[in-house]
């Protein structure tokens, strides 16, 4: 089976950088700040595949580069290096120009024009941030937030968009009568669910979840996670679940990648990572589970 997305050598550095950055940062130095030039190697040489209808877990503590990874895949930040290729099955019809004639995989998405990136992102990806302010326009109605993505994808019928928004809000357990209320009137859990509804609005193939339940009350977190699990099964979504909480990843993901100081220290089946961790840091992470 072919992966949907192939990521190779993905790295991001903040600051001037020097030739000694790479070998003086990383898990063995327990830092991603280069002592020589002070630049931060947020993540370096990350490689993995994301398969259709698969939930891949990304765990690591803060500063491990997991959120940077999501921002890079969502084209919010310019990658310093590496490639990200989309499988032909993913969206060949939409952008024939990014596939060289016979190739199974597209050209490197990271080096494409902002215009193309935004097209691809709008059609392919949905994202849910930990902080709802990043994902939503707080003063615009929640239905409007969903409509924005539909509008970006060319929808031009108000009734049609409202129907789609109502359907998504219902799916994410938000009372449809509150569709015209702005998210700033909603609770934290509801805001996350509006984000999920917005992320699903034009049927993405990939859902990026960046610490979506962090900071929510336990009962609210449970409800959001169950919703995500059911949606994944229903929409056959590929998901990248970023979390510092192994419990979240265990609930949602079959495979998990462990990041530390910007590098992948271990990758494997989620139950194997939890029950038979190989790398020192993973063992520490699993041992520090509550």
């Amino acid at each position: 089976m072919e992966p949907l997305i192939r990521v190779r050598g993905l790295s991001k550095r903040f600051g001037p950088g020097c030739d000694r950055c790479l070998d003086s940062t990383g898990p063995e130095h327990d830092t991603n700040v280069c002592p020589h030039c002070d630049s931060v190697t947020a993540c370096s040489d990350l490689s993995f595949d994301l398969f259709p209808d698969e939930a891949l877990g990304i765990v690591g503590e803060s500063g491990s580069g997991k959120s940077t990874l999501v921002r890079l895949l969502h084209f919010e930040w310019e990658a310093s290096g590496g490639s990200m290729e989309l499988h032909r099955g993913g969206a060949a019809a939409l952008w024939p120009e990014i596939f060289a004639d016979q190739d199974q995989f597209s050209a490197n998405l990271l080096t494409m024009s902002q215009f193309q990136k935004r097209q691809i992102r709008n059609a392919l990806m949905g994202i849910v941030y930990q902080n709802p302010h990043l994902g939503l326009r707080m003063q615009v109605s929640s239905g409007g937030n969903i409509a924005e993505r539909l509008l970006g994808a060319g929808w031009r019928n108000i009734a049609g968009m409202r129907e789609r928004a109502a359907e998504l809000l219902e799916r994410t357990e938000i009372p449809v009568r509150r569709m015209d209320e702005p998210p700033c009137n909603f609770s934290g859990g509801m805001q996350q669910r509006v984000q999920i509804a917005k992320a699903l609005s034009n049927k993405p193939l990939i859902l990026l979840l960046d610490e979506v339940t962090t900071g929510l009350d336990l009962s609210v977190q449970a409800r959001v996670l169950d919703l995500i699990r059911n949606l994944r099964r229903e929409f056959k979504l590929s998901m990248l679940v970023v979390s510092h909480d192994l419990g979240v990843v265990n609930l949602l993901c079959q495979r998990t990648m462990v990041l530390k100081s910007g590098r992948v220290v271990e990758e494997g089946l989620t139950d194997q990572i939890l029950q038979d961790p190989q790398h020192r840091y993973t063992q520490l992470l699993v041992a520090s589970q509550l």
Partner: protein
Amino acid sequence: MITVDNLSKNFLLHILGEKRIEACRAVSFRVPPGGFLGLSGPSGTGKSTVLKCLYRTYLPTGGAIRYDSAAWGPVDLATLPDRAVIDLRHREMGYVSQFLKVIPRVSALDVVMEPILTRNGVSREAARQRATRLLEQLRIPRHLFDAYPATFSGGEQQRVNIARAVSWKPRLLLLDEPTASLDRGSVEIVLDILKEMRGEGTTMIGIFHDTALLESVTDSVYSIC
């Protein structure tokens, strides 16, 4: 169907000062298609470890596990890429642990129905009927069907666990002390179900601390010492 050749598993615990623990060593056996192999030996000699290595919850340290997969042909489970293992677990391999790994907030009926729906692709109604029949067969009271198993007794949970594992008819079924917490009557029911599945060609490897039970239900026994 499956050949284990000189399998060994050690744990290297970096966080405990590079402590090395040997879980099992030089395990070799063969199980023909449709066969039922029992694993025996005192507790702590690595019986569960072997099963977990087969199911790839543990990464084997050495040796090979040659398995004739329907989908992938002959493969070595010890080194098979994660993606393929996920596919095998999804389509061919079942695993029944000693205790139910509770998926929170999912009713007993759904727990049993879920594998039927995702693996056999039958209609929701057909899956519901088969799950209901299995739960009734395992004497789970009807009023518990839409309750969360986390609240059930140990025996009830294990019976749901078995119902779940057998509901979708895997090609290879690994059983780690499935009947440990069951009463006499339930054990009989479980054995009947297993016998029925063997009749349909499921290959099994199981651990039963009750040696009499082990002898009666398996074709052959491999003892680990």
